Every structure is written in structure tokens, then in C-alpha cells.
């Protein structure tokens, strides 16, 4: 009986180890790369992002942005053009995010102002922008372990718990903790930290569904960790592939970006 149990236990352990093998065969960096592909397609696209900001539990502001995204073949990083649609006071404003070449354009003053990576984080455009970042391009990853966490739809997800540290000067955040679901490589949760180590944002992905040729998140929930009474949800709508010429990423193109 005891021997039988030992054999059974050994077989069970070996079976479980075999199940674990495919997961372990992925390097942490490969996990992040696969998760990037779940979030971002490999070709240029646009989306209309609706951001709803909750203050102390109540919806307060709603912004809409059109994000045009295209991967730079050299850096494998996405470059974004953001056009504000809502609220009315910001309608028509635009931003160009291309590595360190960041510009903000206001049609009222017809002025293009260059902004720093830190200044990029001010304002809602940064949220829509950050969500297209290919993390694998800017971060080195280590596996902290496996964890079962609850996602934003209250489902238990078995995840890789990853620690990402910035290795390029174009990385927006200094450090990210990242939870990616086993098997599906779906990003479930992320925590973003500043250079000083301060927790800035907590992010959950939810609403996975078929769009742009794969199952991708249709919504993100962002909790402001500095002021936890602030929560923002982002719905990714009207996703479609779109040809985006390289000239669009010139600052002088910003005033010419037409609404479609």
C-alpha cells in the first residue's frame, strides 16, 4: 500500500512536472513578448479609446481619444498619434509619441510644444498611449513565481508573476510587476512604479474578445495608486487596421492629421 502510494505519488509528481514543463520552457522575456502580441497586433491600427474617470466611486469625466499606432521596425516599439475628441474643451488637440520625440499640438494656439517623457504622463493621452507599449522592447524580465490571482471579472487565473526592469531610456516606467495567464498569455494585471520606486498605477485587463484578428482585451481598469479614489476605465472601440504612412510621425504632420 505504502509502495503503491509512493509510485502513485511519483507518477503524479512527474505528470505535474510534465505539465509544468511547457510553462517553464518559456523564458520570462518570451512570456512578455507573447503577452505583447495579445495586446497589440503586428500591423498598424487605430482605435477609439473611451476613458471614464471615477472619483470617489462616481463617474466624473469621460474622454475619447483616437489612437493611431504603428510599430517601429527598428526598435519594435509602437509609435502613437493621439487625437482628442472629447471633452469639447480638448477637441482637436493632438499628441505625437515617438520614442523621445514627443510633441503636443493645440489647434487653438496652432503651437507644437515638445514635451519630456515625464510630461507625457500628465493627462489622459498618456493612458491610451501607454497601453500600446511593447514591454519586451524596453524591459528585462525575471520570473518571481506563479500565482493564482483574481482578475477584474472575478475569475481565478493562474499567472506568471513577472518583474520588469527598464533597460532603455525610452521606457516610460522604471519598473513593472506583471501577471500573465498561463497558456493563453493574456495579461491580467500590472503594477507600474516610478523611478523613485513609488507605486503609481495598478492596471487590470478585462473583456477579452475577438478583435484585430485575435482574442484581445477590450477594456482596461486603471487604479491611481497615489490617489486611490481615482479609477479610470478604458474601452478600446472601433479597432481597425489602418495604413499609417511614416510621414505621419513628423511633428509638422500633427496639424494635418484629419479626422476620419
Amino acid at each position, binding site marked *: 500500500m505504502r509502495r503503491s502510494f509512493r509510485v502513485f505519488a511519483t507518477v503524479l509528481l512527474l505528470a*505535474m512536472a510534465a*505539465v*509544468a514543463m511547457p510553462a*517553464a520552457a518559456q523564458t520570462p522575456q518570451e512570456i512578455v513578448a507573447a503577452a505583447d502580441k495579445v495586446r497589440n497586433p503586428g500591423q498598424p491600427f487605430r482605435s*477609439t479609446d473611451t476613458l*471614464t*474617470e471615477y472619483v*470617489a466611486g462616481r463617474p*466624473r*469625466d*469621460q474622454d*475619447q481619444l483616437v489612437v493611431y499606432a504603428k510599430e517601429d521596425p527598428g526598435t519594435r516599439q509602437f509609435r502613437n498619434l493621439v*487625437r482628442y*475628441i*472629447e*471633452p*469639447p*474643451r480638448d*477637441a*482637436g488637440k493632438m499628441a505625437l509619441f515617438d520614442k*523621445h*520625440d514627443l510633441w503636443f499640438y493645440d489647434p*487653438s*494656439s*496652432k*503651437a*507644437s510644444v*515638445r514635451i*519630456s*517623457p*515625464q510630461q507625457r504622463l500628465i493627462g489622459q493621452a498618456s493612458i491610451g498611449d501607454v497601453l500600446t507599449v511593447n514591454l519586451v*522592447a*524596453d524591459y528585462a*524580465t525575471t520570473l518571481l*513565481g*506563479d*500565482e*493564482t*490571482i483574481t482578475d477584474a*471579472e472575478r475569475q481565478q487565473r*493562474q499567472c506568471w*508573476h513577472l518583474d520588469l526592469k527598464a*533597460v*532603455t531610456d525610452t521606457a516610460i516606467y522604471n519598473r513593472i510587476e506583471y501577471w500573465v495567464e498561463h497558456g493563453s498569455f493574456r495579461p491580467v494585471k500590472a503594477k507600474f512604479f*516610478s523611478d523613485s520606486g513609488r507605486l503609481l498605477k*495598478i492596471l487590470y485587463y478585462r*473583456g477579452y474578445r475577438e478583435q484585430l484578428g485575435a482574442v484581445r482585451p477590450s477594456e482596461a481598469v486603471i*487604479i491611481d495608486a497615489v490617489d486611490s479614489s481615482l*479609477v479610470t476605465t478604458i*474601452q478600446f*472601440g*472601433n479597432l481597425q487596421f489602418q495604413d499609417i*504612412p*511614416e*510621414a505621419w510621425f*513628423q511633428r*509638422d504632420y500633427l496639424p*494635418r492629421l*484629419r*479626422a476620419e
Partner: protein
Amino acid sequence: MRRFITSPARRAGEVICAFFLLLSPALAADEDTDLNLIPPAAQAAPPAVVPVPASSATQRNYLEDAFTFTPLRNDLLVPYPPPTPASWEDRLFLDSRDEWNLGNNVTLDYSGRFNLRAANDIPFPSHESVRNDLRELFLSLQPDDSTWIDLGRVNVKSGVAVGYNPTDFFRTRAVVEPLTADPTILREDRLGTLMLLGQHVWTGGSVTAVFAPKVTQPTAIYTNIDLPSFDPMLDRTNAQDRFLLKSSVAVSNDFSPELLLYHAGDRTQVGTNLTVGIGQQTIAYVEWAGGGRASLIADALAYGRQTGTLPKQAPPVIPADATQYFQNDLAAGFSYTPVDTKLTLNLEYHYHEAGFTSQDWRNWFNAAAQHGNIPGVDPALWYIRSYAQDQQEPETRHSAFVRADWTDAFVTDLELTALANINLQDGSGLLQATADYYLSRVWTIGGQATLTFGGRRSEFGSLPQAGGILLRLVRYL
């Protein structure tokens, strides 16, 4: 990009770790407490939002009421000639910006402001109570993906600095009745110039060529009480032939200098705009323009004589160097955003070689003290400074500019802005603080306080306006 490298030993270690983790999967209860921060209203995915048509981003219309109160000094060393600035004014205006697609790659753009105003120094109602500023009206043709031809009244803005833009050549005379000293807002209500503009943008840069024809004669500087009601005021923008050629070229990933060549009347200027990122928080910038011109004083007196404001044969009220030689304009500074804040600081140094030297300032005050009793002397002295304001050029040679903008200051949707413009030659200056609170997606309420300081023999201490208070309510349509 640095790839994560795994050795066989490390991989084996990961397998073992994964194995044991699988045996006892961690339930990250601590992580799950973060979910409690999501408010119930946002727990479930909200119903699919119907996106606002992107075409709505081509228009912005708002109604604003702005009340200004301006305390005046009554102990001026150089008395200000009539009309004195209004001590109070209320302005209700409809500000519109729109674009229509006419098909065949042609769009029509309009931008303007319709004002109803009342002030202590203008009769109400009168034609001065109703004014319209036609900022822009132009057709834009796009013959291919990256080429545009614009024809009509267009606002062309150049420059990378915030407080003063030497390369913003079309700024002259274009600002009508400013409500603020904030240069970033001043540009929102300025007149465009009637022009033909061609632009081509390619992967590595862009080139823009502009021809703005002379369609009328130069006119006298306007005051608060003689602004036309419905008039495009082309005399402000098209009183001489002007040409501009500018190009930016991407030298590296984050360095794209812009070069400019500008010709107006009998003067030619060249200029450049440079920006460079320093770390994650700082953008440094330099904006320079240079060309042959006379001093500000000589230019002002010549313009006054040309437009009939000053007697043609009258001698200069103060020494004026009318010699034309190469003079420089410079704005150099940086923006800085501290980590983990929504605060942006700008600090700039401005050099305007044609502006008042310290000796010019002494001459200006001494002329009033010695000859102010002669009719026409004080108005001529003030005319020089009005000319500088009308031309949107600094009065003095050396100045500093500081601006701070704080988004979501103290509470969400409160934006605070503070700026200072300091004359480095006499230490006088202007301070302005603005608070705007976004009550909702369509309502904004705001206030602004302005203060000028300095000795009586200083640039800002000699102004008739001691400061000002502005209250405003905005409804976006």
C-alpha cells in the same frame, strides 16, 4: 533591447521552481485586495460606448463671459495719454473653430470670435459693443498624401519657446484685445495672415513656403475705443509683402532642427528652432532669429510718422538709432517636469537686441521729466511702448520668463498656472496667477490675478495698470 538569457542550469532551476509552485500554488490574496479599489460602478464592464464621431474633433465652439477689473496707478512719472486703459470691462464672446470637408481632398477652415462687450470707456450700446475677429478662413487642398496648399487667412505659428518666439514672424500686430499676459493663451486669439502656403512633409522632415501679399496700407495702432466692429483688419496682417521659407530635418531620432528664412518689406531675417531632450524630465530649447533692422525706438517713431500718429517732421523725443544692422533675438530655456507630479516648469531667458538698453530707459524717463510739459512729448514716449506691444516684441533688451502649470492641483480638474515676466535690467516685472476648474465636460470656471511691480522708473512700475482681476465662465457647445 536586451534579451533575457537563460542558461541550462537556470532553466532547470526554473523547472524545479515551477514544479514546487505547482504543488503549492500561491493564492495571491494580497493582490486580490487591489480589486476592492475598483468602485462598484466600474466593477462590471460598462455598456459599449458609442464613440463620438471623430469628425467632431475638427470643431470647438464655446461661449465665454469674462469680466476684468483693472486698478490703475495715479502717480505715474510719465502720464499716460488718453484713452487710458479701461478700468473694467465685460466681454461675452462666442469662439468658434470648424472645418468642413468639401470633397476632392479640399477642406474649408474657419476660426473666429464674436464679441459683445461693455466697458467704462465705451458707450453701450454702440458699434464698439459688437466686434468680430476673423482669425482664419482658408481653403486647404491636399493633392497627395503629404502635400498641402492653403489659400486664405491662415494663422502660421513658428517657434519652440513659450514666453517669446523670435521666429514667430507672423505675430506682429495680430493679437487683438488680449485678456491675459500668458503667451500660450495670447496665441489663441490672434489674426491669421492672408497668404498662399505650400507644405510638404516626408519621413525625414518638412518644408513650408509662404507668400503673404500686401493688400492695404499700414494703419495707426488701435486703442480699446476705436476697434472696428466687422472688419477683417487686413491692415494688421497684410500691409506689406512677406515671404517665409522654413524646413525641419530629422538629423537623429530626437533632434530635428528647424531653419527659417523670412523677408518682409525691405528686411530679411534668418532663424532656427532647436530642441533637445535631457533625461526623462527636461526639454531644453533655443530659438533664435537675426537680421538687419533699426532699434525698436527708431522703428516705432518711423511707424508713427508713416501712419500719421506722430508729426512727420518732429524730432525724436529720445535718441533713436535708425542705423540698420544685424541684430539678434533669442529665447533660450527649458521645461522641467518633476517625477511623480503633474507640474511643468518653464524657465527662459529672452534677448531682444533692438529693445531698450538701460540708457534708453533712462532717456525715456528723463525726456518726460525734462520735456513732458511740451505737448506731444508724453504721447510720443508712450507710443514707442505701444508699438512694441502691437508688434508683440519685448520692450527691453534682457528679460526672463518663468511659467508653472499644475494639472489636477490639490483636487482633480483644477488647473493652476503662474507666470512671471521680469525685466532683468531694472528688476521690475509682471506676475500672473490663473486658476481654472473644470466643473463638468462643458462648464469651466476660472479666475486670474495680475500684478505689476517695480520702481516708478522701471518698465512695469511705470505702467498705468497696477494689476488686474479676471473672472470667467465658459460653456462649451
